């Protein structure tokens, strides 16, 4: 008897599954759905999406497709029949690949008028800037105070014996902040950056796969209570520490080293897929992403800075986040040509 019920139960489920499948098929065929491909770090407030949906009578569906690199490669692979209409999240370290693969259609959004020209890297308007952020070293204020240790102020300082074993970085082959930091050293040292990494290695630099491990397992000022008081993270991370503190703080436990050339500026872009559906809606969504409402919502969701100059920053950003005054810059064409070779050479040194 028991078995019989089980059989009936599973049959019912099979039906349910079939219905689910049909529903899914119907949902994806609907004319008023706009699909937006993003990386896993994308976040947005519900009411902001709703206001766009209501104003344009559309359903916005987000597809989170892995980290920025994975997302881009999935998009390139499916470019003839794209999985979405719009893609957000490709940054200046990957931009050239997106442009070379020719996955985007050009769209010169009128909203660009509020965006400084320095962010508009693609003059053909296939990829439009949405936000930026600086990858910098964060340090544990308390550790440096307690040990009477000066905070390093240059790349060269980091290789000094007093900082032996105190820095954790991410592998540039598997992590986007890791890659950004390596690019900053490349911009600073030129071809000599590999010798510099050799000296960091000799000075006990710790390499991990990604930001999560670096920040939560190794960094001493995070709740993970790790062993390294310096970590490669973002200039906005100290603000996030305050915003996500279990009890209200007047000061962040961490700060960023924003000395000249030590940070790398990441700019994230949005583009409209070639061969996508809903071109009109896609354009409206791009305008919306560059508009003030979305731009002001973004900082507390993704801890990045708006490119729209009119957008107001939240208080916690004004008070606790830092911006690098002189971030390292490499043209995206130069990154495109050398990126893989640099990473391979780096990996060879750090073995």
């Amino acid at each position, binding site marked *: 008897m028991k078995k019989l019920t089980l059989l009936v139960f599973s049959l019912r*489920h099979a039906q349910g*599954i079939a219905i*689910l*499948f049909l529903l*899914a*098929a119907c949902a*994806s065929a609907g004319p008023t759905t706009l*699909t937006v491909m993003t990386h*896993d*770090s994308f*976040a*947005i407030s*519900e009411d902001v999406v709703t206001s766009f949906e209501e104003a344009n009578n559309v359903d916005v*569906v*987000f*597809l*989170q*497709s892995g980290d920025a*690199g*994975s997302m881009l*490669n*999935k998009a390139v*692979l*499916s470019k003839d*029949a794209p*999985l979405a209409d719009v893609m957000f999240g490709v940054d200046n370290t990957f931009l050239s690949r997106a442009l070379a693969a020719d996955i985007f259609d050009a769209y010169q959004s009128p909203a660009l008028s509020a965006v400084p020209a320095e962010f508009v890297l693609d003059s053909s308007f296939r990829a439009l800037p949405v936000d930026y952020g600086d990858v910098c070293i964060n340090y*544990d*204020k308390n550790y440096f105070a307690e040990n009477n240790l000066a905070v390093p102020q240059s790349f060269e300082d980091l290789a000094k014996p007093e900082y032996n074993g105190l820095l954790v970085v991410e592998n540039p*082959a*598997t992590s986007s902040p890791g890659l950004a930091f390596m690019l900053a050293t490349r911009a600073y040292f030129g071809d000599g950056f590999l010798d510099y990494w050799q000296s960091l290695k000799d000075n006990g630099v*710790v*390499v991990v*796969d*990604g930001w*999560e491990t670096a920040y*939560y*397992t190794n960094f001493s*000022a*995070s*709740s*993970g209570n*790790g*062993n390294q008081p310096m970590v490669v993270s973002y200039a906005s*991370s100290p603000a*996030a*520490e305050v*915003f*996500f*503190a*279990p*009890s*209200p703080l007047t*000061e962040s*436990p*961490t700060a960023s080293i924003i000395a000249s050339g030590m940070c790398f500026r990441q700019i994230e872009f949005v583009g409209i897929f070639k061969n996508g559906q809903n071109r009109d809606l896609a354009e409206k969504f791009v305008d919306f992403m560059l508009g003030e409402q979305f731009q002001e919502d973004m900082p*507390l*969701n993704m801890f990045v800075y708006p490119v729209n100059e009119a957008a107001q920053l939240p208080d916690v950003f004004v008070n606790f986040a830092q911006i690098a005054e002189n971030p390292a810059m490499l043209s995206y064409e130069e990154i495109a040509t050398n990126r*893989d070779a640099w990473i391979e050479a780096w990996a060879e040194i*750090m*073995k």
Partner: protein
Amino acid sequence: MRNNLLNYGDTKTWRIKFLRILVSPWFSRLFLWLAPLLFLSIFFFYPLTKILTLTFDLETFTDPNNLRITQHATRFTFYQATLSTILTFALGLPSAILFSRFDFHGKSLLRALTAVPFMLPTVVVAAAFNSLFSYKVTGSMLQVFNLQPSTLNFLLILTAHVFYNTTIVIRIVGNALSQLGPRIEASARILGADTFRTWRHITLPLLRPSLLAAALLVFMFDFTSFGVILLLGGSNFATLEVEIYIRALQLPNLNLAAFLSVIQLIFTLIFSILYTRTINQVQTQTAPRFSTARPPKTIKEKIFVATLTLLLSSFFFLPLVSLPVRSLTRLEPDRGQRDQVQYGFTTDYYEELFINRRGSLFYVPPVQAAVNSLGFAGITVLLSLALGYPAAYALAKPTRLEKFLDPFLMLPLGASTVMMGLGFILSFGRLIASPFFIPIAHTLIALPFVIRTLQPALASIPERLRQAASTLGASPFRVWQTVDFPILSRATLSAATFAFTVSLGEFGATLLITRPEYPTIPITISRFLSQPGGLNYGQAMAMATLLMLLTTLSILLIEKLRFNNAGEF
């Protein structure tokens, strides 16, 4: 009239013919294979072929740099998988004996606990280990033993593999051991064999099929290890799977990624063929026995039980218990100048889970995440049992067809999930965003487990028992009910547990593109861990604790079910 009769007669012979075909061994075999093969063709072989035909290129073979990378990754993959498997058996085999032969306090809880790591995301396991052995401890260990940091990384990888996979040995070998019963051993003893000889000549040969099955599964899991290597290996170690991930998605060289995946697939096929060959050489049928466990009697047995339970609890319980501890502790106090620092116990993280502070579209109430996780796991169990049963039935009495098909069933375990994910995109396009694909991806990974768990049990059912039952007048269903089912209930529950854990642990999640409407617990955890801040970390630990409780309870429930069933017979 006559005409009609004739017609009727024709229909009748036709019907009989049809029935004959239906009951013919040839047709029933085909029928058994229909669903599993259809599933694997659509969701495995089709996407795999699609991505490989696009990206595989023999010219990859001529580049010396590619060859060097391939050789390096292959060597390391074999090395760590072999060591990990040996270590896993070193702990798993005694544990299997412990759980199948002895009764002691807290047995079911301990057994359930050994399965929990299998389901926890790698990041959480790393956090658990980390909070247990702080870096200061490992730092001094490095100095004392004069180890290189990379040696420590390697040791951590091995430990994590043992932590994850011991449960496979306990379940598969333990099952076989309890089915064996102590009587055969007792007879050997009476005939004058000592413990060693009894094991060597009686127990081990009888256990061979399940030992091989467990070894194959553990080895395959270590062989294709991905998250553990990436997370604990630093930048020093890369298995084939890690190298495929890097070449496919990070430093794009899809040709090399395809080449590496083909190598990984070929090895998987070789292991499976070797397994099938050896397992078909010996096939001992034993009568089923139930509940052979008893409390330890002699001093030797008591020492064995005490030491092993202590070892297992400290290995599994301590890291796991550190998660709930972390989720309830406030760690801020000793840092910097802060206002009114509160110290110690807190339930803030749990309360915060229920608040959508930023009004985020991606916020999920924890109950919803749990319901999603359990729902997908439930569907995965049903789907993988429905597909695994017929396949295991056919495999239990292999004909030429089965001997040919058998090795291919293991391939999903050896296929790179990264490449499969790309294959899915090429094959199904926009459909892969449908939530329906989540249990399908989980079933792909669970199916080899289910089949490998059911097959030895099915093969061990003595044909003479079935024949005896039929001779005594039992209907085929009654034969199944009284002979097959009691033996199978144990294996079925094991198989179900595997499918359930594979799904809760989100194996093969990299296959997919996620939609925020259906996040599972592991996805929520990784969302919390993607931003800085004490609340995020605390909530991740709280969510991980919920996942742990949920999985422990589910496993205890499944085990409970087992004992009720066993009681019926």
